[in-house]
Protein backbone atom coordinates (compact mmCIF):
# COMPACT_ATOMS: atom_id res chain seq x y z
CA UNK A 1 0.00 0.00 0.00
CA UNK A 2 2.64 2.48 1.08
CA UNK A 3 4.84 1.63 -1.85
CA UNK A 4 1.93 2.27 -4.18
CA UNK A 5 1.92 5.86 -3.04
CA UNK A 6 5.67 6.20 -3.02
CA UNK A 7 6.25 5.16 -6.59
CA UNK A 8 4.81 7.23 -9.42
CA UNK A 9 4.71 4.30 -11.80
CA UNK A 10 2.77 2.08 -9.42
CA UNK A 11 0.57 5.02 -8.53
CA UNK A 12 -0.33 5.62 -12.15
CA UNK A 13 -1.10 1.96 -12.76
CA UNK A 14 -3.08 1.55 -9.58
CA UNK A 15 -5.22 4.63 -10.00
CA UNK A 16 -6.14 4.34 -13.65
CA UNK A 17 -9.74 3.38 -12.80
CA UNK A 18 -9.99 4.64 -9.24
CA UNK A 19 -10.79 8.23 -10.17
CA UNK A 20 -13.80 7.59 -12.40
CA UNK A 21 -15.16 4.89 -10.08
CA UNK A 22 -14.98 7.16 -7.03
CA UNK A 23 -16.52 9.95 -9.05
CA UNK A 24 -19.47 7.76 -9.97
CA UNK A 25 -19.99 6.71 -6.36
CA UNK A 26 -19.74 10.32 -5.26
CA UNK A 27 -22.40 11.48 -7.70
CA UNK A 28 -24.76 8.75 -6.53
CA UNK A 29 -24.19 9.38 -2.82
CA UNK A 30 -24.46 13.13 -3.18
CA UNK A 31 -27.62 12.79 -5.25
CA UNK A 32 -29.26 10.58 -2.65
CA UNK A 33 -28.12 12.70 0.29
CA UNK A 34 -29.20 16.00 -1.21
CA UNK A 35 -32.49 14.57 -2.36
CA UNK A 36 -33.33 13.30 1.11
CA UNK A 37 -32.14 16.53 2.65
CA UNK A 38 -34.12 18.83 0.42
CA UNK A 39 -37.29 16.86 -0.15
CA UNK A 40 -37.76 14.12 2.42
CA UNK A 41 -36.37 15.46 5.67
CA UNK A 42 -38.94 17.51 7.60
CA UNK A 43 -38.68 21.29 7.69
CA UNK A 44 -37.22 22.73 10.86
CA UNK A 45 -39.92 23.90 13.23
CA UNK A 46 -38.23 27.23 13.89
CA UNK A 47 -36.29 27.96 10.71
CA UNK A 48 -38.54 26.38 8.17
CA UNK A 49 -37.04 25.39 4.85
CA UNK A 50 -34.06 27.66 5.35
CA UNK A 51 -32.56 24.98 7.57
CA UNK A 52 -32.19 22.67 4.59
CA UNK A 53 -29.12 24.60 3.52
CA UNK A 54 -27.51 22.84 6.46
CA UNK A 55 -27.11 19.69 4.36
CA UNK A 56 -24.77 21.57 2.04
CA UNK A 57 -23.19 23.90 4.57
CA UNK A 58 -22.19 21.66 7.43
CA UNK A 59 -20.51 18.91 5.40
CA UNK A 60 -18.69 21.56 3.32
CA UNK A 61 -17.46 23.18 6.52
CA UNK A 62 -16.18 19.84 7.73
CA UNK A 63 -14.52 19.16 4.39
CA UNK A 64 -12.71 22.47 4.19
CA UNK A 65 -10.94 21.68 7.43
CA UNK A 66 -10.45 18.04 6.50
CA UNK A 67 -8.85 18.88 3.19
CA UNK A 68 -6.49 21.32 4.85
CA UNK A 69 -5.49 18.65 7.35
CA UNK A 70 -4.84 16.31 4.44
CA UNK A 71 -2.57 18.94 2.91
CA UNK A 72 -0.74 19.39 6.20
CA UNK A 73 0.09 15.70 6.36
CA UNK A 74 1.15 15.76 2.71
CA UNK A 75 3.40 18.71 3.48
CA UNK A 76 4.99 16.96 6.42
CA UNK A 77 5.77 13.89 4.38
CA UNK A 78 7.03 16.07 1.56
CA UNK A 79 9.47 17.86 3.83
CA UNK A 80 10.63 14.72 5.61
CA UNK A 81 10.78 12.18 2.82
CA UNK A 82 11.14 14.67 -0.02
CA UNK A 83 8.81 12.70 -2.16
CA UNK A 84 7.36 14.18 -5.32
CA UNK A 85 4.00 12.41 -4.91
CA UNK A 86 3.40 14.08 -1.57
CA UNK A 87 4.02 17.48 -3.18
CA UNK A 88 1.66 16.64 -5.96
CA UNK A 89 -0.98 15.44 -3.53
CA UNK A 90 -0.88 18.73 -1.63
CA UNK A 91 -0.92 20.79 -4.79
CA UNK A 92 -3.83 18.78 -6.19
CA UNK A 93 -5.92 19.05 -3.04
CA UNK A 94 -5.64 22.82 -2.67
CA UNK A 95 -8.12 23.96 -5.33
CA UNK A 96 -10.66 21.41 -4.13
CA UNK A 97 -10.30 22.63 -0.56
CA UNK A 98 -10.66 26.20 -1.76
CA UNK A 99 -13.97 25.33 -3.40
CA UNK A 100 -15.27 23.60 -0.27
CA UNK A 101 -14.29 26.65 1.75
CA UNK A 102 -16.04 28.91 -0.72
CA UNK A 103 -19.17 26.71 -0.52
CA UNK A 104 -19.06 26.90 3.25
CA UNK A 105 -18.71 30.69 3.18
CA UNK A 106 -21.39 31.25 0.55
CA UNK A 107 -23.97 28.89 2.01
CA UNK A 108 -23.20 30.28 5.45
CA UNK A 109 -23.88 33.82 4.23
CA UNK A 110 -27.04 32.72 2.48
CA UNK A 111 -28.17 31.06 5.66
CA UNK A 112 -27.13 33.99 7.79
CA UNK A 113 -29.37 36.46 5.98
CA UNK A 114 -32.69 34.95 7.17
CA UNK A 115 -31.40 33.75 10.55
CA UNK A 116 -29.10 36.52 11.76
CA UNK A 117 -30.41 39.21 9.41
CA UNK A 118 -26.97 39.89 7.95
CA UNK A 119 -24.85 38.43 5.21
CA UNK A 120 -21.67 38.80 7.12
CA UNK A 121 -20.61 39.32 10.69
CA UNK A 122 -17.09 39.56 12.04
CA UNK A 123 -17.72 36.59 14.27
CA UNK A 124 -14.79 34.40 15.33
CA UNK A 125 -15.81 31.32 13.39
CA UNK A 126 -16.74 33.18 10.25
CA UNK A 127 -13.52 35.16 10.36
CA UNK A 128 -11.34 32.12 10.93
CA UNK A 129 -12.96 30.37 7.95
CA UNK A 130 -12.29 33.46 5.84
CA UNK A 131 -8.67 33.25 6.96
CA UNK A 132 -8.61 29.62 5.92
CA UNK A 133 -9.81 30.73 2.51
CA UNK A 134 -6.94 33.22 2.27
CA UNK A 135 -4.51 30.54 3.37
CA UNK A 136 -5.67 28.31 0.54
CA UNK A 137 -5.19 31.20 -1.88
CA UNK A 138 -1.74 31.94 -0.49
CA UNK A 139 -0.78 28.29 -0.79
CA UNK A 140 -1.78 28.19 -4.42
CA UNK A 141 -0.10 31.52 -5.10
CA UNK A 142 3.16 30.21 -3.67
CA UNK A 143 2.96 27.20 -5.93
CA UNK A 144 2.64 29.38 -8.99
CA UNK A 145 5.23 31.95 -7.98
CA UNK A 146 8.34 29.79 -8.15
CA UNK A 147 10.15 28.82 -11.29
CA UNK A 148 11.01 25.29 -10.30
CA UNK A 149 8.65 22.72 -8.88
CA UNK A 150 11.02 21.58 -6.14
CA UNK A 151 11.41 25.08 -4.74
CA UNK A 152 7.71 25.76 -4.94
CA UNK A 153 6.96 22.47 -3.21
CA UNK A 154 9.20 23.25 -0.27
CA UNK A 155 7.93 26.79 0.17
CA UNK A 156 4.30 25.75 -0.10
CA UNK A 157 4.79 22.94 2.39
CA UNK A 158 6.29 25.35 4.91
CA UNK A 159 3.39 27.74 4.53
CA UNK A 160 0.88 24.92 4.82
CA UNK A 161 2.38 23.73 8.08
CA UNK A 162 2.50 27.23 9.53
CA UNK A 163 -1.14 27.77 8.57
CA UNK A 164 -2.15 24.60 10.39
CA UNK A 165 -2.55 26.61 13.59
CA UNK A 166 -5.74 28.02 12.08
CA UNK A 167 -7.53 24.66 12.05
CA UNK A 168 -7.96 24.27 15.80
CA UNK A 169 -8.96 27.92 15.93
CA UNK A 170 -11.80 27.29 13.50
CA UNK A 171 -12.82 24.13 15.28
CA UNK A 172 -12.91 25.57 18.78
CA UNK A 173 -13.65 29.20 18.07
CA UNK A 174 -17.29 28.58 19.01
CA UNK A 175 -16.24 27.10 22.33
CA UNK A 176 -13.66 29.74 23.19
CA UNK A 177 -15.69 32.79 22.31
CA UNK A 178 -19.39 32.99 22.74
CA UNK A 179 -20.47 34.23 19.38
CA UNK A 180 -23.27 34.12 16.90
CA UNK A 181 -22.37 30.86 15.29
CA UNK A 182 -23.72 27.78 16.94
CA UNK A 183 -21.59 25.27 18.79
CA UNK A 184 -20.74 21.81 17.56
CA UNK A 185 -23.56 19.38 17.97
CA UNK A 186 -22.06 16.51 16.02
CA UNK A 187 -19.01 14.83 17.43
CA UNK A 188 -17.60 11.46 18.34
CA UNK A 189 -19.39 10.07 21.36
CA UNK A 190 -17.34 10.39 24.53
CA UNK A 191 -17.17 6.60 24.82
CA UNK A 192 -16.72 5.91 21.11
CA UNK A 193 -14.01 3.31 21.72
CA UNK A 194 -16.46 1.02 23.42
CA UNK A 195 -19.04 1.51 20.72
CA UNK A 196 -16.86 0.39 17.86
CA UNK A 197 -19.00 -2.70 17.55
CA UNK A 198 -22.11 -0.57 17.05
CA UNK A 199 -21.12 1.89 14.34
CA UNK A 200 -24.41 3.71 14.41
CA UNK A 201 -23.70 4.97 17.91
CA UNK A 202 -20.14 6.14 17.46
CA UNK A 203 -21.32 9.54 16.42
CA UNK A 204 -23.00 11.49 19.11
CA UNK A 205 -25.42 14.04 17.83
CA UNK A 206 -27.85 16.47 19.27
CA UNK A 207 -29.49 16.65 15.87
CA UNK A 208 -32.59 14.52 15.47
CA UNK A 209 -32.12 11.43 13.32
CA UNK A 210 -33.99 12.72 10.20
CA UNK A 211 -31.46 15.58 9.95
CA UNK A 212 -28.42 13.52 10.79
CA UNK A 213 -28.59 10.81 8.18
CA UNK A 214 -28.82 13.01 5.04
CA UNK A 215 -26.11 15.20 6.48
CA UNK A 216 -23.78 12.24 6.94
CA UNK A 217 -24.68 10.95 3.49
CA UNK A 218 -23.69 14.25 1.90
CA UNK A 219 -20.51 14.23 3.93
CA UNK A 220 -19.61 10.78 2.62
CA UNK A 221 -20.46 12.01 -0.89
CA UNK A 222 -18.17 15.01 -0.50
CA UNK A 223 -15.43 12.71 0.74
CA UNK A 224 -15.78 10.44 -2.27
CA UNK A 225 -15.81 13.46 -4.55
CA UNK A 226 -12.65 14.76 -2.93
CA UNK A 227 -10.94 11.40 -3.37
CA UNK A 228 -11.92 11.24 -7.02
CA UNK A 229 -10.84 14.79 -7.82
CA UNK A 230 -7.54 14.54 -5.95
CA UNK A 231 -6.57 11.40 -7.79
CA UNK A 232 -7.56 12.86 -11.13
CA UNK A 233 -5.70 16.10 -10.41
CA UNK A 234 -2.62 14.16 -9.38
CA UNK A 235 -2.66 12.16 -12.57
CA UNK A 236 -2.99 15.34 -14.62
CA UNK A 237 -0.09 16.90 -12.76
CA UNK A 238 2.10 13.87 -13.38
CA UNK A 239 1.30 14.01 -17.07
CA UNK A 240 2.15 17.72 -17.09
CA UNK A 241 5.53 17.06 -15.53
CA UNK A 242 6.26 14.34 -18.02
CA UNK A 243 5.49 16.78 -20.79
CA UNK A 244 7.94 19.18 -19.21
CA UNK A 245 10.70 16.59 -19.28
CA UNK A 246 10.02 16.08 -22.96
CA UNK A 247 10.27 19.82 -23.60
CA UNK A 248 13.55 19.81 -21.72
CA UNK A 249 14.87 17.23 -24.09
CA UNK A 250 13.81 19.27 -27.08
CA UNK A 251 15.63 22.32 -25.79
CA UNK A 252 18.73 20.30 -25.09
CA UNK A 253 18.73 18.96 -28.63
CA UNK A 254 18.06 22.37 -30.16
CA UNK A 255 20.98 23.79 -28.21
CA UNK A 256 23.38 21.37 -29.76
CA UNK A 257 22.39 21.97 -33.36
Amino acid at each position, binding site marked *: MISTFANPLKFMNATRWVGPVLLGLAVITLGVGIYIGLFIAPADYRQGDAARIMFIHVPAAMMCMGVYSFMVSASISS*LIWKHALADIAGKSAAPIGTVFTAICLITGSLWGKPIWDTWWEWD*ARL*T*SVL*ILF*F*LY*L*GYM*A*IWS*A*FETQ*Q*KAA*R*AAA*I*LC*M*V*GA*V*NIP*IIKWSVEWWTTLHQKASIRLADDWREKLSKPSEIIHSELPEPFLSPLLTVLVGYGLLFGALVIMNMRAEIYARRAEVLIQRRYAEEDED
Partner: protein
Amino acid sequence: MQKQNMAEGVLLPLFFRELKLAWSGGGGAALPVGFYAGAATLTPLALGPATDLLQAAGPGVLFISLALASLLPMERLFQADLEDGTLDVLASSGASMTGIALSKTLAHWMASGLPLALVAPLLWVMLQGPGEAVLIVLGISLLGGLAFFFIGSIGAALTAGVRRGGLLIALVALPLYAPATIFGASALYAAAEGRDWTGSMALCGACALVAIALGPFASGAALKTALD
Protein backbone atom coordinates in the same frame (compact mmCIF):
# COMPACT_ATOMS: atom_id res chain seq x y z
CA MET B 1 41.74 28.17 13.53
CA GLN B 2 38.95 29.09 15.87
CA LYS B 3 36.00 27.06 16.77
CA GLN B 4 32.77 28.54 15.49
CA ASN B 5 30.25 28.74 18.23
CA MET B 6 27.01 29.23 16.41
CA ALA B 7 25.12 31.06 19.09
CA GLU B 8 27.70 33.77 19.51
CA GLY B 9 29.43 33.52 16.20
CA VAL B 10 26.42 34.19 14.06
CA LEU B 11 23.68 35.67 16.12
CA LEU B 12 25.35 38.60 17.76
CA PRO B 13 27.46 40.16 15.00
CA LEU B 14 24.64 39.74 12.51
CA PHE B 15 22.16 41.20 14.93
CA PHE B 16 24.24 44.29 15.60
CA ARG B 17 25.08 44.86 12.00
CA GLU B 18 21.47 44.59 10.90
CA LEU B 19 20.51 47.02 13.58
CA LYS B 20 23.12 49.47 12.39
CA LEU B 21 22.34 49.07 8.71
CA ALA B 22 18.63 49.35 9.35
CA TRP B 23 19.18 52.77 10.82
CA SER B 24 22.05 54.02 8.72
CA GLY B 25 19.95 53.56 5.60
CA GLY B 26 18.79 51.08 3.05
CA GLY B 27 17.32 48.75 5.63
CA GLY B 28 14.30 50.99 5.69
CA ALA B 29 13.77 50.83 9.43
CA ALA B 30 12.44 54.34 9.50
CA LEU B 31 9.72 53.90 6.90
CA PRO B 32 7.39 51.95 9.20
CA VAL B 33 7.67 54.56 11.91
CA GLY B 34 7.00 57.41 9.52
CA PHE B 35 4.18 55.41 8.08
CA TYR B 36 2.68 54.64 11.45
CA ALA B 37 2.89 58.22 12.58
CA GLY B 38 1.50 59.35 9.24
CA ALA B 39 -1.41 56.97 9.47
CA ALA B 40 -2.28 58.13 12.95
CA THR B 41 -1.91 61.78 11.94
CA LEU B 42 -4.11 61.40 8.90
CA THR B 43 -6.83 59.64 10.88
CA PRO B 44 -8.28 62.73 12.58
CA LEU B 45 -8.10 64.54 9.26
CA ALA B 46 -10.11 61.82 7.57
CA LEU B 47 -12.51 60.97 10.37
CA GLY B 48 -13.21 64.58 11.20
CA PRO B 49 -12.59 66.17 14.55
CA ALA B 50 -15.59 64.65 16.38
CA THR B 51 -14.07 63.41 19.64
CA ASP B 52 -16.45 60.55 20.31
CA LEU B 53 -15.92 58.94 16.91
CA LEU B 54 -12.17 59.29 17.32
CA GLN B 55 -12.37 57.71 20.73
CA ALA B 56 -14.47 54.86 19.46
CA ALA B 57 -12.36 54.14 16.38
CA GLY B 58 -8.96 55.16 17.75
CA PRO B 59 -7.74 51.98 19.43
CA GLY B 60 -8.72 49.85 16.45
CA VAL B 61 -7.14 52.19 13.91
CA LEU B 62 -4.00 52.35 16.01
CA PHE B 63 -3.60 48.60 16.13
CA ILE B 64 -4.31 48.07 12.44
CA SER B 65 -1.77 50.75 11.62
CA LEU B 66 0.71 48.88 13.77
CA ALA B 67 0.04 45.63 11.92
CA LEU B 68 0.38 47.28 8.54
CA ALA B 69 3.47 49.24 9.50
CA SER B 70 5.08 46.02 10.69
CA LEU B 71 4.40 44.48 7.31
CA LEU B 72 6.34 47.18 5.49
CA PRO B 73 9.94 46.25 6.31
CA MET B 74 9.19 42.63 5.49
CA GLU B 75 9.50 42.95 1.73
CA ARG B 76 13.18 43.86 1.99
CA LEU B 77 13.97 41.85 5.13
CA PHE B 78 15.77 39.07 3.30
CA GLN B 79 15.57 40.25 -0.28
CA ALA B 80 18.38 42.79 -0.05
CA ASP B 81 20.83 40.24 1.34
CA LEU B 82 19.70 37.71 -1.21
CA GLU B 83 20.23 40.08 -4.12
CA ASP B 84 23.59 41.47 -3.15
CA GLY B 85 25.12 38.11 -2.28
CA THR B 86 25.47 38.62 1.47
CA LEU B 87 23.24 35.64 2.12
CA ASP B 88 25.53 33.48 -0.03
CA VAL B 89 28.49 34.27 2.18
CA LEU B 90 26.51 33.85 5.38
CA ALA B 91 25.13 30.52 4.28
CA SER B 92 28.34 29.09 2.84
CA SER B 93 30.10 29.86 6.11
CA GLY B 94 28.11 27.05 7.67
CA ALA B 95 25.97 29.29 9.84
CA SER B 96 22.54 27.93 10.62
CA MET B 97 19.76 29.48 8.59
CA THR B 98 17.50 29.49 11.61
CA GLY B 99 20.05 31.58 13.46
CA ILE B 100 20.38 33.96 10.54
CA ALA B 101 16.62 34.37 10.29
CA LEU B 102 16.31 34.85 14.04
CA SER B 103 18.99 37.51 14.32
CA LYS B 104 17.78 39.43 11.31
CA THR B 105 14.18 39.42 12.44
CA LEU B 106 15.08 40.39 15.97
CA ALA B 107 17.31 43.19 14.73
CA HIS B 108 14.56 44.53 12.54
CA TRP B 109 12.14 44.35 15.39
CA MET B 110 14.59 46.31 17.50
CA ALA B 111 15.13 48.76 14.68
CA SER B 112 11.51 49.41 13.78
CA GLY B 113 9.25 47.38 16.06
CA LEU B 114 10.57 48.94 19.23
CA PRO B 115 10.29 52.53 17.93
CA LEU B 116 6.80 51.69 16.71
CA ALA B 117 5.84 50.60 20.21
CA LEU B 118 7.50 53.67 21.69
CA VAL B 119 5.54 56.12 19.58
CA ALA B 120 2.30 54.20 20.12
CA PRO B 121 1.44 55.94 23.44
CA LEU B 122 1.97 59.30 21.76
CA LEU B 123 -0.38 58.49 18.94
CA TRP B 124 -2.81 57.01 21.45
CA VAL B 125 -3.05 60.35 23.16
CA MET B 126 -3.37 62.12 19.82
CA LEU B 127 -6.32 59.89 19.01
CA GLN B 128 -7.99 60.94 22.27
CA GLY B 129 -7.23 57.76 24.19
CA PRO B 130 -7.29 58.11 28.00
CA GLY B 131 -3.91 59.15 29.36
CA GLU B 132 -3.85 56.61 32.21
CA ALA B 133 -3.62 53.74 29.74
CA VAL B 134 -0.39 54.72 27.98
CA LEU B 135 1.73 52.09 29.68
CA ILE B 136 -0.72 49.37 28.76
CA VAL B 137 -0.68 50.65 25.18
CA LEU B 138 3.09 50.40 25.19
CA GLY B 139 2.98 46.83 26.47
CA ILE B 140 0.38 45.69 23.99
CA SER B 141 2.22 47.34 21.11
CA LEU B 142 5.43 45.59 22.12
CA LEU B 143 3.78 42.18 22.17
CA GLY B 144 1.77 42.81 19.02
CA GLY B 145 4.83 44.07 17.18
CA LEU B 146 6.81 40.96 18.14
CA ALA B 147 4.04 38.75 16.81
CA PHE B 148 3.75 40.76 13.60
CA PHE B 149 7.47 40.80 12.93
CA PHE B 150 8.06 37.12 13.52
CA ILE B 151 5.01 36.06 11.54
CA GLY B 152 5.89 38.52 8.81
CA SER B 153 9.41 37.15 8.54
CA ILE B 154 7.97 33.80 7.50
CA GLY B 155 6.17 35.50 4.66
CA ALA B 156 9.33 37.44 3.83
CA ALA B 157 11.46 34.32 3.66
CA LEU B 158 8.88 32.37 1.66
CA THR B 159 8.67 35.06 -0.96
CA ALA B 160 12.27 36.29 -1.07
CA GLY B 161 13.54 36.13 -4.60
CA VAL B 162 10.14 35.40 -6.06
CA ARG B 163 8.18 37.21 -8.70
CA ARG B 164 5.31 39.23 -7.26
CA GLY B 165 6.87 39.02 -3.82
CA GLY B 166 4.98 42.01 -2.50
CA LEU B 167 1.46 40.74 -2.93
CA LEU B 168 2.49 37.31 -1.78
CA ILE B 169 3.82 38.59 1.52
CA ALA B 170 0.54 40.37 2.15
CA LEU B 171 -1.43 37.30 1.11
CA VAL B 172 0.64 34.94 3.23
CA ALA B 173 1.20 37.08 6.29
CA LEU B 174 -2.00 39.05 6.75
CA PRO B 175 -4.23 36.03 7.42
CA LEU B 176 -1.72 34.92 10.03
CA TYR B 177 -1.85 38.41 11.53
CA ALA B 178 -5.54 38.05 12.31
CA PRO B 179 -5.40 36.44 15.77
CA ALA B 180 -2.84 38.88 17.12
CA THR B 181 -4.86 41.76 15.67
CA ILE B 182 -8.07 40.59 17.28
CA PHE B 183 -6.57 40.11 20.73
CA GLY B 184 -4.39 43.19 20.62
CA ALA B 185 -7.19 45.49 19.52
CA SER B 186 -9.60 44.08 22.04
CA ALA B 187 -7.04 44.61 24.80
CA LEU B 188 -6.65 48.22 23.64
CA TYR B 189 -10.41 48.73 23.69
CA ALA B 190 -10.62 47.21 27.14
CA ALA B 191 -7.90 49.57 28.33
CA ALA B 192 -9.63 52.54 26.74
CA GLU B 193 -12.93 51.73 28.39
CA GLY B 194 -11.38 50.85 31.74
CA ARG B 195 -12.33 47.19 31.53
CA ASP B 196 -10.04 44.25 32.34
CA TRP B 197 -7.45 44.02 29.60
CA THR B 198 -5.23 41.28 31.01
CA GLY B 199 -6.96 38.35 29.34
CA SER B 200 -6.75 39.72 25.79
CA MET B 201 -3.22 40.90 26.36
CA ALA B 202 -2.19 37.45 27.55
CA LEU B 203 -3.65 35.93 24.39
CA CYS B 204 -1.80 38.52 22.29
CA GLY B 205 1.36 37.58 24.16
CA ALA B 206 0.68 33.93 23.41
CA CYS B 207 0.51 34.77 19.70
CA ALA B 208 3.87 36.51 20.02
CA LEU B 209 5.37 33.53 21.83
CA VAL B 210 4.20 31.04 19.24
CA ALA B 211 5.49 33.31 16.47
CA ILE B 212 8.90 33.65 18.09
CA ALA B 213 9.14 29.93 18.75
CA LEU B 214 8.13 28.77 15.27
CA GLY B 215 8.96 31.71 13.03
CA PRO B 216 12.74 31.39 12.76
CA PHE B 217 12.56 27.69 11.91
CA ALA B 218 10.05 28.25 9.15
CA SER B 219 11.94 31.28 7.85
CA GLY B 220 15.25 29.46 7.93
CA ALA B 221 13.89 26.54 5.98
CA ALA B 222 12.30 28.89 3.46
CA LEU B 223 15.53 30.86 3.03
CA LYS B 224 17.42 27.73 2.13
CA THR B 225 14.96 27.23 -0.67
CA ALA B 226 15.36 30.81 -1.83
CA LEU B 227 19.14 30.44 -2.16
CA ASP B 228 18.91 27.30 -4.25
